[in-house]
């Protein structure tokens, strides 16, 4: 991404929105080099001045080549760090360009972050048919890795052979919840998406896009050429909203493609009408619909699994609440 794109993004969106979280994603975002981020942070300081309450940064990296210089840089710059890591080499699907599993490199990065900075990073684990078969093994693995938080994201991409079946979705996620909830060790402080699901069941204000009908409302994706898209899952002319270098924010937000996407979201949500867990599930992810059905305006393909998950979590919490409530032990 060229410096003029970064500068336009900060200036135009920063002028329009009261708060922004800059999520630096890739490909692999560290490939841009530390100097790129030094300039980006300087551009933010130039725009926002001392008012750091109006923005935050996070970076989502595969952790390869994340050396001490990178670690010191993100810590000093207060950049929230997430590692993409799908489990041990035997079940993780991430590989290097030469096709070798990269799990051991990420493990080394986690060890070093803990050793050097006493920092237990959050890990984003894409759940596939490969690593979902053994939830107990996967939970033990991440616990042994001493990660501070774990977010489980069902595989949504174009490879159908990796996608979870509804049964596997339900069995994997409910088992992971039980393992985490019943683990007396608090090392993995948060487990996503359950932290969001529990909060929504209790009416607490926290959620992520896929559990809060956030599509086409809370996120915009900016590509290196300045192209603005619905979210990073959607590319191509049908999903392009404009270009930050040449278009105003008002025009981008009035783009026919954004209106069409929101109409498709409404259509998908209409399919959820009458669902008993709608206020917790919120209808899921349109990327999942798009990759499964070829169109955005369809119900989330993990619908059944999501319903099982929500009810399982609510049931388990109710059991615990009964157990611990006064006079009813």
């Amino acid at each position: 991404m060229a410096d003029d794109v970064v500068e336009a993004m900060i200036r135009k969106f920063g002028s329009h929105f009261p708060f922004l979280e800059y999520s630096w994603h890739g490909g692999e975002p560290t490939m841009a080099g530390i100097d790129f981020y030094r300039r980006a942070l300087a551009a933010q300081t130039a725009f926002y001045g001392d008012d750091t309450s109006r923005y935050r940064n996070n970076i989502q990296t595969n952790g390869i080549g994340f050396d001490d210089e990178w670690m010191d840089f993100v810590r000093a710059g207060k950049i929230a760090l997430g590692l993409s890591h799908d489990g041990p080499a035997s079940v993780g699907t991430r590989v290097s360009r030469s096709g070798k599993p990269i799990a051991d490199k990420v493990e080394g990065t986690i060890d070093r972050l803990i050793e050097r900075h006493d920092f237990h990073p959050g890990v984003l684990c894409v759940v596939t048919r490969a690593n979902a078969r053994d939830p107990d093994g996967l939970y033990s693995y991440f616990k042994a890795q001493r990660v501070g938080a774990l977010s489980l994201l069902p595989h949504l991409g174009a490879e159908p052979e990796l996608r979870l079946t509804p049964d596997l979705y339900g069995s994997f996620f409910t088992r992971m919840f039980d393992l985490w909830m019943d683990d007396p060790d608090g090392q993995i402080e948060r487990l996503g998406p359950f932290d969001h699901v529990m909060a929504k069941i209790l009416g607490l204000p926290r959620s992520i896009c896929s559990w809060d009908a956030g599509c086409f409302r809370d996120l915009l994706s900016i590509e290196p050429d300045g192209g603005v898209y619905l979210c990073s899952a959607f590319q191509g002319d049908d999903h392009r909203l404009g270009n930050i270098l040449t278009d105003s924010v008002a025009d981008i937000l009035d783009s026919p493609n954004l209106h069409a996407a929101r109409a498709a979201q409404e259509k998908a949500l209409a399919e959820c009408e009458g669902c008993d867990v709608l206020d917790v599930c919120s209808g899921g992810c349109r990327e999942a619909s798009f990759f499964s059905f070829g169109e955005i305006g369809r119900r989330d393909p993990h619908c059944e699994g999501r319903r099982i998950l929500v009810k399982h979590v609510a049931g388990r919490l109710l059991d615990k609440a009964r157990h611990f409530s006064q006079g009813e032990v």
Partner: protein
Amino acid sequence: MDDFETTKKQLQDLMDNIDPATVDQVKFRRLVDAFRASMGHGGTRLSGGEIAYGRSYERSSGHEKGHDKADDNPWSDSWSKAMA
């Protein structure tokens, strides 16, 4: 009220009457604490990374233990209004 609504209601009523000090399970204690704080009964609000911002991108897992406080949640309806 359907079954799920009943479950939620029962849960919320019970949660409000649990003394976190009596809960010896760390995950559940944190939740009780957070729930009671949201009800204005003291306790500790949930904190950390993406959560503190309200609605975040599910492909980001950045998290620092105890780093962000929900109290200084900068997210508000004004963002959604600006997006409209």
